[in-house]
């Protein structure tokens, strides 16, 4: 597990953009954190790093938003879903096993159907206003490679 402290919005954006710039086809990010922790904010920066020019908005109501960038970005918010079955109905597998990048907010709610090889990002609020603590953890070679490329430990 890698722990990063981000002091303020600007550092969050820098981290997101860097991460977005090194993502590869098929990468899956599961984002967790309380309401207002910054999941959508981080996704916006990751999108920017992926070359998405559209304005990224929260998929809370639409469930999935799709963006075109250097790679396709599929942005999920599974907060409202009852469970994994709902996701199969959406055609979830078409997205996560595609050549795009999937970012899943509240991914912990559907952990059982996510591939083991994924990047988990947990965002926590710090005691300092605007400071965020980010935990990165995951399994597999791709995760190790990504941490190396992020050059943070």
């Amino acid at each position, binding site marked *: 597990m890698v722990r990063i402290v981000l002091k303020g919005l600007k550092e969050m954006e820098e981290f997101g953009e860097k991460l977005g710039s090194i993502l590869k086809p098929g990468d899956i990010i599961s984002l967790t954190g309380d309401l207002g922790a910054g999941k959508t904010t981080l996704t916006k920066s990751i999108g920017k790093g992926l070359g998405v020019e559209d304005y990224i908005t929260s998929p809370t109501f639409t469930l999935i938003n799709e963006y075109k960038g250097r790679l396709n970005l599929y942005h999920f918010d599974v907060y409202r879903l009852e469970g994994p079955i709902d996701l199969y*109905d*959406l055609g979830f597998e078409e997205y996560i*096993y595609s050549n795009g990048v999937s970012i899943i907010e509240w991914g912990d709610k559907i952990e059982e159907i996510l591939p083991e090889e994924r990047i988990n990002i947990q965002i926590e609020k710090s005691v300092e206003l605007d400071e965020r603590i980010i935990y990165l953890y995951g399994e597999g070679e791709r995760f190790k490679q990504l941490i190396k490329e992020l050059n943070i430990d």
Partner: protein
Amino acid sequence: MKTLAVDTSTMMATCALLDEDRLLGEFSLNQDMTHSENLVPMIKEMLDNLNLKVKDIDLFGVAIGPGSFTGLRIGIATIKSFAHVFDKPVIGVSTLEGLAFNLPYKGYIVPIIDARRNRIYTGIYNRIKGNLINIVEPTIMEVDKLMELLQEEYDHIIVNGNGTLVYRDIILEALGDQVIMAPKNLNSCRASSIGELALLKYKEGQRDSYYHLVPEYLRESQAQRELRKRDK
């Protein structure tokens, strides 16, 4: 009876217009999944070139799956809205039956659509007195399971569908001389086949409603998923 049909079950977006005897036009594009942007302009292009309008259509046909969930929803929503606006009949056709219909072959016809992660949507068909008969109902299974089934129980097989591209080596290794791979022009989903089947089914009395027509996703059952998880 002018029939407009579409199939967006796979990466191939295809629309066609038929009358009783002839194929009047067909427009197919095999691209990245961009059906939501392409399908309606494609239909318009085809109709414009034929000097026809949507209101001139008497019957609508659409492939209802199995296939890409997103793709199916785009095709079905499009056709349902056309049929609704002009209050015309609509017929849903199995994507696999459509693929099988491409092939005028005396033997076993096995359409194969990729369902990702070594899984396929498939069924087995043959023709009796020219009529396409479904022998093994559309299902989702692992490609290896289908190969076992075909090896043991079938001969004179022809396969088509995008799964034959993804699993080409596996198919050839398992079936060798038992199997023919369909030529490219018959390998993909074609709206002309969906349209002809829709017309045939309409004449046989089938009626689907634009209120009630839904995709046939063919999801893996809970039991299949559990098994897969255990194997993992």
